[in-house]
């Protein structure tokens, strides 16, 4: 049951063959950890997700959340699941062991995120927001507050939220109007204001909820420079963590949504009775700076939603197309020819291949980003750390926006592959599309990601970070230019890369001549960049797979095409490596050229979208 929620083989390929997760164990932080430990963790992660989370997904979606007498109730089944998830140590897998985290490498936490979001996406908001909020407290709160609350968050006793958005302050987070005023003679602040769209904002899963609230202190400047960060509990607590009376935080409503129905999305009112108390985290006016420091990992996790839900939808579609019978083969002239499984039809195969290439591409991109993220913290050499950090900075907006847009596209294709049944709830695939859509909107809309890439990331170190990326991909392409079987694929990625590089250099001129028109190019540029990076990683995967496949052929004595095909049919390892090569081929032939096309559209400098009177 629920076999479609995970592709363990590909996860292991990305962790240990495309990347070298075990290289991280040479860093002091992970000393003594072994492949066996990671394998046990992987198996337990899959077991928990398949057996405890996946069975909740559809029912929780149908049930949704309700608000009664100022308290939000989420599906009751989540209560046990949250307790299990916390007790298992899964909430803060890669966080500080001194505070109840597990201190494991980031890529393993990313793996768990992929599997668990696939199993029950709406459930994962509760642990996900908790660890994000806990990490902020861990990094920036004073030691006393940190040591008191972080272990409670990482263990699953209390949950957390991130309260940025207000009705007038969505993308424009600098317009936050919630206020905070120090209460004399205490370390507390009085908080007043309204937040909306707060995920996991209230529920009955744990005894307390800690809100991390962006608010303004009196006299601070307008905009992002005048925003501070506060911790505001649902229930007050004393110096030992014992719960006291309810704080003046009111749940004024919950949203009724397209998807993630079992994740509560709350409107919160702080200080209706003028008695909402909170604690300042870190220094005044640093709220946005703190948030931004946590942004990369949160955005990569956002990309994981695209991968996880897209991947599940694809695997369901794959199962379905192997069962559904419709019509004879198109090339069959004989009217009495038998009907075939729809997976035999070329157009169905093309759609499956799109889903597959996108899914494996997202996985390669995101897990590589996770390796960079970890290296940037744990590598002993400061130069390597800096390089990894630069690479992650550059790739984060792509990881977020490309994977959430493409993840959505995959869920849509997967519905298409089911025909009418895909539109029917019973078949479970439509939920993935509803659940994944939000990921392109929050954590900075994908439009904002594109602006971040073009406006900030491309200019990092005066363009030096982009040049480093360029050098890295060039080294890979040159090293494999004469590859015996993959030279054509290498060349396709090279063309796509050149188009994106040329486009990047043109932007500087465009920006000077017509800045608004240049901004029009941001989204297509991010998309094109994504096709190049993902194409490169898929071809790199094929380069890794080819000798392993050849070795199996040699061992099995398969010397001609027919014998090789039989080995691919019979031997699952051969089939896996062969599929890596076919997937790279498909991407290079059918998708990488999109980068060339997109670069061309940017080059036209067309400004009709600006000139039109709507």
């Amino acid at each position, binding site marked *: 049951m629920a076999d479609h929620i995970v592709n363990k083989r590909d996860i292991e390929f990305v962790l240990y063959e495309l990347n070298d997760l075990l290289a991280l164990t040479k860093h002091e932080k992970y000393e003594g950890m072994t492949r066996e430990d990671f394998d046990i963790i992987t*198996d337990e992660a899959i077991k928990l997700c398949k057996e405890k989370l996946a069975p909740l997904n559809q029912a929780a979606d149908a049930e949704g959340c309700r608000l009664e007498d100022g308290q939000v109730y989420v599906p009751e089944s989540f209560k046990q699941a949250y307790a299990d998830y916390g007790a298992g140590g899964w909430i803060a897998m890669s966080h500080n062991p001194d505070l109840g985290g*597990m201190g494991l490498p980031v890529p393993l936490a990313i793996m768990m995120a992929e599997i668990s979001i696939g199993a029950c996406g709406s459930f994962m908001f509760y642990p996900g927001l908790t660890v994000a909020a806990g990490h902020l407290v861990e990094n920036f709160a004073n030691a006393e507050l940190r040591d008191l609350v972080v272990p409670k968050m990482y263990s699953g006793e209390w949950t957390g939220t991130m309260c940025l958005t207000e009705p007038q302050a969505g993308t424009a987070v600098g317009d936050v109007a919630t206020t905070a005023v120090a209460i004399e003679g205490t370390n507390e602040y009085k908080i007043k204001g309204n937040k909306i769209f707060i995920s996991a904002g209230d529920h009955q899963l744990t005894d307390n909820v800690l809100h991390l609230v962006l608010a303004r202190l009196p006299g601070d400047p307008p905009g992002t420079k005048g925003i501070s960060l506060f911790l505001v509990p649902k229930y007050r607590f004393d110096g030992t963590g014992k719960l006291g009376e309810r704080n003046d935080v009111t749940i004024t409503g919950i949203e009724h949504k397209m998807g993630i129905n079992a994740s509560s999305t709350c409107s919160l009112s702080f200080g209706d009775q003028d008695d909402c108390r909170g604690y300042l985290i870190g220094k005044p006016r640093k709220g946005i700076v703190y948030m931004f420091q946590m942004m990369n990992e949160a955005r990569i996790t956002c990309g994981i939603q695209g991968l996880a839900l897209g991947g599940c939808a694809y695997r369901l579609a794959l199962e379905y197309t192997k069962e559904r019978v419709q019509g004879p083969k198109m090339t069959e002239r004989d009217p009495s020819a038998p009907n075939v499984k729809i997976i035999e039809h070329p157009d169905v195969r093309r759609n499956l291949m799109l889903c597959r290439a996108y899914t494996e591409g997202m996985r390669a991109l995101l897990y590589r980003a996770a390796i960079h993220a970890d290296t940037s913290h744990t590598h002993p050499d400061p130069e390597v750390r800096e390089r990894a950090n630069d690479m992650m900075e550059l790739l984060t907006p792509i990881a977020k926006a490309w994977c959430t847009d493409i993840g959505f596209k995959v869920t849509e294709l997967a519905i298409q592959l089911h025909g009418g049944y895909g539109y029917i709830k019973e078949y479970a695939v439509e939920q993935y599309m509803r659940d994944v859509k939000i990921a392109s909107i929050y954590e900075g809309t994908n439009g904002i990601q594109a602006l971040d890439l073009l406006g900030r990331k491309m200019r990092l170190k005066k363009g030096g970070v982009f040049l480093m990326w360029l050098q890295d991909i060039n080294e890979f392409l040159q090293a494999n230019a004469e590859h015996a079987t993959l030279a054509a694929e290498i060349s396709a990625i090279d063309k796509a890369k050149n188009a994106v590089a040329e486009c990047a250099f043109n932007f500087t001129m465009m920006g000077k001549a017509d800045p608004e028109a240049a901004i029009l190019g941001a989204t297509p540029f991010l998309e094109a960049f994504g096709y190049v990076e993902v194409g490169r990683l898929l071809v790199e995967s094929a380069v890794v797979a080819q000798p392993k496949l050849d070795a199996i052929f040699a061992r099995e004595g398969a010397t001609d095409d027919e014998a090789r095909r039989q080995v691919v049919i019979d031997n699952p390892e051969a089939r896996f490596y062969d599929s890596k090569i076919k997937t790279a081929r498909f991407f290079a032939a059918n998708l990488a050229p999109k980068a060339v096309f997109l670069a061309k559209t940017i080059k036209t400098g067309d400004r009709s979208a600006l000139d039109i009177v709507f």
Partner: protein
Amino acid sequence: MKILTTVKRVVDPDAKVRLNSDNSGLVTEGLEAKMNAFDQYGVEEAIKLKEAHGGEVIVVSIGDSAGTKEIRTALAMGGDRGVLVTADMSEIDPKGVADLLAAVIEREAPDIVLMGKLSVDSENNQVGQRVAAKLGWPQATFAFTCEVADGWATVGREVDGGTANVRVKLPAIVTADLRLNEPRYASLPGIMKAKRKPIEELTPDDLGVELEPQLIIQGYSLPPARAAGEIVDDVDSLIDRLQNTAKVL
């Protein structure tokens, strides 16, 4: 209380196992390995007994060196230390397994041994019984309940057409059926702790056991492919076929 429990590393029962080209063995390359499902119930029961009565849980496995993973998983669930007897499983029969286990049990002298009722790969259902016979210990197989008090174990057994309750004097061998309990998941803290728990590796020689297989696998073959079904026109012809062709009515 000293509790000994056994785990076997098996190919995932859901994986597609193929025969090799000369039908002399199975191809398991690239297939997942797992802890035998019935052993998970045995391990869980062992840990529950320890939680109730105190003591120590020793996890024993026989197989190749990769088997430390299954032992380590059981240690992560709550076992205390492991013993791996390294042996080539393709050259060892149920009697050999029982001989090796009996030797380990004699060394460890546990109060109770909890095992799976069978392993899901070869489904021989012999080892628990053989170990009991070899040691001259009482046995209670197919357990779905297990209570230990005052030197006795009271075991509810699943038998054809119902259940049976037996009392066995300890030390005894108990083999677990799937309704015995719900095996816990290994937690991450458990997995991290298990890294520091010892696993002793032994060979049959170390145990003074000479393996003389009494069961030798000559070869494997697949069941004949099933003939295609037939679609009949109406109920009458269906009844006719059932009566006269299949002769089941």
